[in-house]
């Protein structure tokens, strides 16, 4: 019985639209975020090894690739936050009709880029 448990249809079966795009992006960014948080945990544990051992991590984080990862994380966190607010409002019974959910979807996607820029500027004390 258990072996015949029905599964969610795989991605290829869906017609691409804003709702399906945001749904899969939400899951993907969630997984990226938890991988990043896990790496940050290792980064913090590494701090215990002392200043000399930390130099290599500092060099990596100051490189172009390091900056790219941090900016990417700003977007990934921003998108997840905004889309999670959208999900929470659905759970409270708001914005579930098709038209509103499409509008909030576009707002979450566009807003994630704006929020990512704001987070970066705020973190760097530029604003």
């Amino acid at each position: 019985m258990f072996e015949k448990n029905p599964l969610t249809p795989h991605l290829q079966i869906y017609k691409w639209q804003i709702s399906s795009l945001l749904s899969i992006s939400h899951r993907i960014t969630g997984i990226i975020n938890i991988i990043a948080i896990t790496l940050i945990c290792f980064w913090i544990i590494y701090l215990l090894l002392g200043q000399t051992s930390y130099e290599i991590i500092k060099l990596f984080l100051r490189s172009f690739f390091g900056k790219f990862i941090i900016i990417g994380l700003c977007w990934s966190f921003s998108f997840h936050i905004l889309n999670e607010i959208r999900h929470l409002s659905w759970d409270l019974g708001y914005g579930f009709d098709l038209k509103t959910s499409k509008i909030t979807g576009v707002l979450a996607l566009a807003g994630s880029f704006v929020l990512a820029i704001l987070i970066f500027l705020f973190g760097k004390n530029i604003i």
Partner: protein
Amino acid sequence: MNISTKKWLILKYSSAILIPLMLWFIINLVSIYDSEYIEVVEFFSSQVSKVLFSLFLVFSFTFSCLTISEIFEDYIHSEKIKNVANKSLNIFAIVVPLITIISIFNLTI
């Protein structure tokens, strides 16, 4: 209360708590990621950072554990593989934040 309802409620409460914690963490990450060793240690050694970051880890790993187990539910066919995957995920979601929180509380300038 049904176990699935409990899981759903934990998921929703943890996501609501996570939103401000995520904002706090990502802004601070941007401000310290390229800093000197001493500045990073100073940040994680402050009492506020220790408490907020520990909460962030507990809620983010709880939330991720529950959501990833939903992904397993959706896409893994075999019950055996699903159980192993869920148990591994639970161990991972306990061990990683626990070691990190212990490390933070042992960090000294």
